[in-house]
């Protein structure tokens, strides 16, 4: 039987956020989550901050090999070439 369920409270929302973003919530849960977001500016802000956090992590730079590292890996390659004959 379908029954009306109460909405999520903010404290539950902050724990459900990853399941929501990962698409790991059942449809009914998603609807309740989205209904709460639509009516709560604080949880909207929180969701936004989590998205910003993810995005900032994704912007961490990749560093180039230093010349010394290049030398080391070049030596590693030579070692392997000798092994294999």
């Amino acid at each position, binding site marked *: 039987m379908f029954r009306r369920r109460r909405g999520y409270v903010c404290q539950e929302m902050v*724990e459900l956020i990853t399941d929501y973003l*990962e698409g790991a919530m059942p449809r009914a849960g998603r609807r309740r989550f989205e209904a709460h977001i639509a009516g709560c500016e604080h949880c909207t802000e929180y969701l936004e901050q989590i998205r*910003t956090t*993810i*995005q*900032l992590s994704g912007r*961490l730079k990749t560093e180039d090999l230093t010349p010394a590292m*290049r030398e080391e890996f070049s030596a590693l*390659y030579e070692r392997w070439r000798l092994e294999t004959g």
Partner: protein
Amino acid sequence: MSLLSQIPMPAIHLNVLATLAVIAWQTASHHAEDEDAALLERLRAGDEEAFLTLVGRHQSSMLRLARSFVSSSAVAEEVVQDTWLGVLRGIDNFAGRSTFKTWLLRILVNRAKSTGVREDRSIAIGDAGPAVDSSRFDASGAWMAPPQHWVEDSEDRLAAESMADEIRAALDELPGRQREVVLLRDVDGLTSEEVCDVLDISEGNQRVLLHRGRSRLRAALESELGGV
């Protein structure tokens, strides 16, 4: 991510930016897989330069991940070298069932685990406290001390390179297992499936660790960006 650098950041709402970033990322990650595959072919044909290019492409990810398992940067570097030697020796074993990067990082994790493990990796997966301190909610569970808006007064800061240091510092503070999942998912852009594969954890544990890690990172940034 080169698309991002061409966009004047302060003019765009972060929501839009996040969407753009995801699109740019997915495109970039397919492209990266193709490039890895091409380099691997050249390496198999005996091209040392292709090897060095491959090493360079994955060096940062590998060092960061290795460092999460072992007790010093020096040991992490050894693990990375050891991994590449293993890759070279087993180059014919890579069958392309996963991406090259996933295969590479799996080897790295196995080597790192057998080298010695940092203490903070022993924290149980479920044992991590709430995403947000319970003192910030009232008895009904509603926000009492809500998060303050980040964008208006700190958009320039969010855009600035300076935030990279805060993120790096906050990542270092995470318990090992959370850090590993966040590094792989959010820094390196692997899918949840790939992360489970690399770290040999279940989908459910991956999600719990990601949740704890992201929540802690957000809290660390919040204390940097004002608010609480």
